[in-house]
């Protein structure tokens, strides 16, 4: 526990001093502001554009449009920011050899993995909560308070998918000892899951549907049952990947 806390402290310090934490917060605050603002402004912008005589009848924006933007942005820009910020999470340590000094002092390898996963997850959680909070606050400001149905399943899903991405980045970084390995692992998983999603029968079980698909719960086109199996699979896969990180690192010659 002592070494775990010491390594977590080092991770926080690293994320703070290398501006990773600030970058994540800045991107997710911007996302939070962008979602309701885009929803609010798009109809005005489109109405003001010269469409060559074609008249577009844009309905007045509603709160649901803001949430549509939220899920679209989180699943694309949000995940991209997460991957860019954390692609060096384990990869940099191996590429630079910074773990040698501490591992030869008795720090266990699984402590490194657990501490890194903990801190990256906390930063992701904080960033995600900020984006959610800012979007919600502005949505209420523009359109008034509305109850969000199935709030837990709806909003926990992209967060769990983010944890899966962190696990993939870590495993790729350890297995291939570099940033490209981390990117390959995370990118590869996203591509494979998207290819699998071509089959509608897989949707219920495919973690990638969690990234932005739960908007349907707010729009009333889906039910929580459509996402629960994927949520369990995604959470299970994340745990399995973290265990995989520990086992891979334990066998790695340095």
């Amino acid at each position, binding site marked *: 526990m*002592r*070494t775990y*806390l*010491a*390594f977590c*402290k*080092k991770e926080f*310090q*690293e994320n703070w*001093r*290398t501006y990773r934490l600030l970058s994540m917060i800045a991107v997710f605050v911007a996302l939070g502001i962008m979602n309701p603002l885009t929803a609010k402004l798009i109809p005005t912008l489109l109405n003001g554009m010269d469409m060559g005589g074609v008249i577009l009848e844009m309905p007045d924006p509603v709160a649901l449009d803001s949430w549509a933007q939220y899920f679209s942005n989180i699943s694309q820009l949000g995940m991209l920011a997460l991957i860019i910020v954390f692609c060096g999470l384990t990869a940099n340590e191996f590429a*630079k*050899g*910074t773990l*040698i*000094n*501490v*591992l*030869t*002092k*008795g*720090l*266990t*390898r699984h402590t490194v993995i657990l501490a890194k996963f903990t801190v990256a997850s906390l930063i992701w959680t904080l960033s995600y909560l900020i984006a959610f909070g800012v979007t919600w606050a502005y949505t209420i400001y523009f359109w008034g308070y509305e109850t969000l149905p199935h709030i837990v399943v709806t909003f926990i899903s992209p967060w769990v998918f983010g944890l899966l991405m962190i696990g993939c980045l870590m495993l790729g970084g350890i297995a291939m000892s570099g940033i490209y390995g981390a990117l390959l692992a995370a990118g590869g998983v996203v591509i494979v899951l998207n290819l699998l999603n071509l089959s509608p029968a897989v949707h219920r079980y495919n973690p990638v549907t969690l990234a932005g698909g739960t908007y349907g719960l707010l729009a009333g086109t889906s039910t929580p049952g459509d996402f629960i199996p994927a949520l369990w699979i995604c959470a299970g896969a994340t745990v399995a990947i973290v265990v995989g990180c520990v086992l891979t690192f*334990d066998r790695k*010659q*340095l």
Partner: protein
Amino acid sequence: MDILRIENLSKSFGKHQVIDGISMSIPEGSVFGFIGENGAGKTTTMKMALGLLSPDAGEIFVLEEKVRFGMTKTNRHVGYLPDVPQFYPFMRPREYLRFCGEIVGLSPAQITRRSQELLDLVGLGETNKRIGTFSRGMKQRLGVAQALINSPKLLICDEPTSALDPVGRKEVLDILRQISSTTTVIFSTHVLSDVERICDRAAVLHQGHIVLEGTLSELKDRHGSSGLAVEFSHPSDTHRFCELVPQRLIAQRTETEVTLSTTDEADERRVLKLLAKHDILPVKFEAIAPSVENLYLEAVS
């Protein structure tokens, strides 16, 4: 007691056999020079002793406790200075030592005291800038400090001086010499003058085998002298001497001094008899002690 004992250790990477059944033991209290050319397998051997690499065969013991790959408990006795120590560039030296101290389980008070001692020892006591801005020499000195944070009984240094300028090299060697009264030091190098400067024992690793091992004085005795320096007061004596002595022995000659390359004591006795027989009186007759360089070249040839 031996601080480190290696028995029949082998390691290959793919088809390349790096270490081929080496055995050696290092007693406590020595400064041990582990000599070998680049790629000889010095780092591989050291990393196996630290549990960072897994041996194909053989065993390593630190204070009679077996080293295991991965998480080895023997590292509580060991400090390690990699050839190019890597640090977190965003930290300051004191923060890095605090982090290391927390990992080895020192109390906050111990960390503060030990950090100050070590930073003073390596000449970084007044430095408070981020490690990312450090020169190579400063990083090497901080590397020594972090390796000593847990007051190890054994300090393993991998080519601690090879990348440093002469001043940096002297500083690091002085630090190693300074700590050798309390800590056994093993350092790998291909800089033979460094071995000569601070080591009392050495081993030469060549093509995966230990080809020479012992105390420096033992090795030098075992290999006898490598030559003689004979000086005369008159050039005529030099000339006479050079005509009498077997030509194969003459390595270098000046007006009044001749350097002979001898292979054993018999050669040297013969030269002495020759001088007496022909009544040539030298002003200097000196056995040239073999240098580590001679021993090394002899061992690997």
